[in-house]
């Protein structure tokens, strides 16, 4: 009897371990099975290729910031109409402790700019072309700041996939192909310096099946990958960029690049019932977004709101909220330039309440009711 006890204990332990393993396996399978897509990490970019590149960076041990930078660099090649290192960004980051920061590296007005620039503004819906509109690009300085704070992989590693894409070329991305069929955009490309990049030997815009190559951009990215953002902001790349901009009639100087600073600030916290939304402060559009959502939260909206007449009613409230938001668009400006109006009132409950009481359930009003008297033109970016 005494000899059988160790066996019994062994059997019990083994049995318990087997049970635990089975439970773990079942729970894991349940979690994976119930999840619509992923369980550990993910990237949602504008293209499959760039989402994949972001994922690959994460799989190599990169942080979400590393993945985002790699995906954005990729997007500058796959969707060059949308963004690139000649532009700027606003990035909201939530760290693992729940602290939320905003990195704003949106373009700035250069030291020298056309005195009567605003008189060049179009009065109808059109594309604003020309070097007078170029702001000081902040993109790479922003990546540098983000990577310094949250990066896990080396800086150079983030550039590798895009350098390869740019150098080897890619088949014309489907969305870009469709875009270049639009007469307005095709004409813009074929009659501007973009044609050097996006036209074939016959000087017509690239189309389906053509290869899109960014040989010069690949060289630039290679240098930035090796030497850091300084190569762009204080080095040879910056000098070359300024030369090209000046030749195109622009006013940017090396000093503009040298003095660009990334703004790091706290996100604004906005409560939407039991959800908290963190928005980038002005000059980003977060306050207008929050204004609309806080207004909509005042109405009884739930899963049944999409049924029958309630659907029209819900969209009516939304349209009214959007009309009031239009009247507030001029509240969004750079807070560092103190002569401009602040946007803080847009998330102030008493202001929301006042506007809420102006929304009727069964009628709409003329534009002045919404303070929308001199509306800014619609922008399509």
């Amino acid at each position, binding site marked *: 009897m005494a000899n059988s006890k160790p066996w019994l204990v062994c059997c019990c332990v083994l049995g318990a371990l087997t049970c635990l393993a089975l439970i773990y396996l079942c729970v894991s399978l349940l979690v994976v099975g119930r999840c619509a897509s992923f369980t550990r990490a993910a990237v949602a970019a504008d*293209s499959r290729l760039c989402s994949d590149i972001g994922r690959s960076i994460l799989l190599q041990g990169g*942080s979400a910031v590393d993945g985002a930078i790699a995906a954005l660099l990729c997007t500058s090649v796959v969707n060059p*109409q949308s963004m690139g290192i000649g532009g700027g960004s606003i990035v909201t980051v939530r760290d693992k402790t729940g602290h939320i920061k905003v990195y704003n590296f949106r373009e700035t007005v250069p030291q020298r700019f056309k005195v009567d620039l*605003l008189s060049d503004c179009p009065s109808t819906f059109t594309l604003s072309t020309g070097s007078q509109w170029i702001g000081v690009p902040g993109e790479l300085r922003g990546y540098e700041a983000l990577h310094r704070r949250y990066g896990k992989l080396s800086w150079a590693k983030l550039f590798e996939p895009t350098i390869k894409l740019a150098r080897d070329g890619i088949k014309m991305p489907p969305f870009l192909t469709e875009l270049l069929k639009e007469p307005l955009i095709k004409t813009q490309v074929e009659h501007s310096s973009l044609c050097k990049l996006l036209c074939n030997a016959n000087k017509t815009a690239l189309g389906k099946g053509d290869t899109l190559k960014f040989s010069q951009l690949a060289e630039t990215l290679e240098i930035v990958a090796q030497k850091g953002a300084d190569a762009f902001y204080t080095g040879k790349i910056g000098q070359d960029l300024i030369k090209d901009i000046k030749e195109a009639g622009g006013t940017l100087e090396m000093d503009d690049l040298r003095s660009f600073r990334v703004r790091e600030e706290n996100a604004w916290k906005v409560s939407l019932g039991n959800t908290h939304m963190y928005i980038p402060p002005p000059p980003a559009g977060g306050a207008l977004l929050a204004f609309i959502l806080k207004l909509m939260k005042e109405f009884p909206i739930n899963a049944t709101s999409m049924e029958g007449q309630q659907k029209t009613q819900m969209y009516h409230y939304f349209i009214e909220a959007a009309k009031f938001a239009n009247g507030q668009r001029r509240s969004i400006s750079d807070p560092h330039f103190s002569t401009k109006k602040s946007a803080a009132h847009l998330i102030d409950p008493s202001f929301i309440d006042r506007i809420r009481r102006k929304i009727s359930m069964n009628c709409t009003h003329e534009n002045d009711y919404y303070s929308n008297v001199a509306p800014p033109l619609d922008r399509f970016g």
Partner: protein
Amino acid sequence: TTHVSVVDEDGLAVSATSTINQIFGGAVYSPRTGVIMNNELSDFCKRADAISAGEQPPSSMAPVILESESGGLLVIGGSGGSMITSAVALAIMNRLWLKMSLKDAIAAPIVYVDSENNVKLERGFDQSVVDGLKALGHKVRDWKYFFNVVNGLEKEDGCIEAVSDKRKMGQAAGY
């Protein structure tokens, strides 16, 4: 403009909106560097009476992060200039309050109210809604340039749903 939402295994979340402003910026290409320049200063048009060196133009970009009290996370943002506000607001409303899946919330047609307060409905609205809005006095106008694109991801109870907008032929990735 483009938007990227990312979450990693450690729980770091990034909502990033990046732009050169309009399509191909101001159509100025730098042949020495391969860089396409932005036309961001045109964002001051009709939204400022004067501008100063160092100033950033106003923007519609809104890369946001939402946290629910139950610990859920929604990392979302969009592109499409003035349409960003409506597109992201509706996607958030659809998900949070109308309880659509994130995929459906982003795919649902949007209503855009332009700067003149005309109402523009993306294809896919019921005729009854169109008629109902007209009956309430809204000026509903035809429009074919819906450049709105929303990308986002949601993490809840150990699951991540990541969605890239089909309007730009996007697709998310993860593991």
